[in-house]
């Protein structure tokens, strides 16, 4: 964030690419979480609790992915509006 005046110019980096990489990481992380939930071959009460909590965590990360994708869309619109689209 430079705060400089003047017409919009392309930024030093395209956040869209970074966000896309983050989405990929989150997708992989979600896969890891789902695998971690089903991986446990253990029927103890603690394992049941663990599965439920990991499933909740996976859902939360999935919601984060949606938020990130929405942010990507907003960035694209903004940058288009700023003359880069």
């Amino acid at each position, binding site marked *: 964030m430079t705060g400089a005046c003047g017409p919009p110019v392309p930024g030093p980096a395209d956040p869209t690419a970074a966000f896309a990489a983050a989405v990929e990481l989150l997708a992989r992380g979600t896969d890891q979480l789902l695998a971690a939930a089903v991986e446990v071959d253990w029927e103890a009460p603690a394992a049941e609790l663990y599965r439920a909590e990991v499933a909740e965590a996976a859902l939360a990360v999935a919601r984060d992915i949606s938020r990130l994708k929405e942010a990507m869309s907003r*960035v694209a619109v903004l940058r288009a509006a*700023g003359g880069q689209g």
Partner: protein
Amino acid sequence: MTAFLTMPPDGPRSPSDTVTVFGGAGVTAVESDSVRRAAARMAAAADDLRSAARLCLAASEDVVLPGVAGAATSRQPDDGLGRPVAALAPVARALEEAVQDLARSLIQHADLCDLLGWRLLRAAGLYEEAESTAERVVGALVTAGAFGTGAAFGSQGGLGLAGAGLLAAGELAGRLGGGLITGGAPWAVSGRLGSAAVRDLAPYSDEVFAGLGSGVGQAQPGLANGYPGIAGGAGVLAHVTRELPLLGNDDQGVRVTRITAEDFADGSPPAWSDTGARSVQEAVARIDSLYPATGGAPPGTVAVQKVTGPDGAVSWTVLIPGTQSALPAEHPWDGRTDVELVADQADGATAAVERALADSGVGPDEPVTLVGHSLGGIAATALVSRAGFAERYRIGGLVTAGSPTGLLTTPPGIPALHLETPEELVSHTDGRSASENPRTRDRVTVVRSLRDSADADDRAASGDVVWAHSVSTHVRTLDLAIGVGDHRVTEVADRIGPRLDGTTVSTTFYRAERVGR
């Protein structure tokens, strides 16, 4: 896959995360392999989430376009929709904040992944917090210092030992009595210790007691009866409490008598007298009713409950309270019995329980569950570990709360559950921390670090020996351990619990007194 970097959460933990379990039935090799793989995946997921958060944070700075950040611009190019680009600045800033908020959310979820992996490993008994090198060094220094102090007391002969005996009996019993020092003096060192000091010293209290006990025993080997370490030191102190004028007494055993409702302060026995305990926690909680101050029971009272199930099967539960007098008293629930028990010497409390059981008419095939708090827990464990007792009675289970039981060995096949917290100090008076208690398939120790808890009550209790040692604190510990579904705890509790309740229940209360005082 053996090495794990999963760490316990930093800072104050949720109360259930302050529980650690030792011993019990371990998971199978297949189960432990799957748990380790799952924990590794959780750690990998946490890494991915943190990497994504870093990318989002870095990119968020590029969201606000150069030239649109400042609202007061001299040139305001059109955005193509008729709006000046500067008008986009608030939108860009809001987006930047949204992305940063998302990054924070990702970091929180990464921390959660680490926490869940750690909890899984802990519940499976595959994670144990190791003492740091610094902690080990401090522990060794504390032991050495306490050894010197104990040896100095012991080398002073009778007077020195009298001082040590007074100090130890007063301290031990003052702590064991849970604040009910009916015959004691108000000079207990624990009262002078600030809450912060108690909290800080708690992890090293086992080293303090081990060093002191060994030092006293080393200085007076004849009185230690050949016992090494803290048992020898306790033997020396037991001798002092019995033999020295003013401190000792020449009693000739114990007398055990049945008591009636009129003997209780409010003229009636505890409300639970004709109902069985529906859980191990409830059985432990009932012990509070046997203390004179909290339950109105006469000093030295134990409860023997007979439970008959729907099939006619009979089982018994014995509830044994803790120390009620720092100094030798007219009943055996005193500081003298504490040191006698730790020294593995004949004592009045176990004798009283044995007589109560004999009077109750317990059949040879009727399981007996012993539940004790503090001194009561040591007495219960001592009975179970004694040759002959387990042959005479069928032991259904053993539950102790706030009792130093690490020096005692229980027979295989008997489910045993020990509840401890380092901040109570009492359970370390055998020189063993909870992690050093015997660990077998049948024997489970649940320890809770109050000082690591985020709960305000736990934090307060962590600086208050009496509160940390109270029955209610230990009941909460067991509640939490069962709540997190630790299979080692639920397994042993499930073996003990069903024997505590039935369709027909009656309770006999006994009062024990020393004879000849």
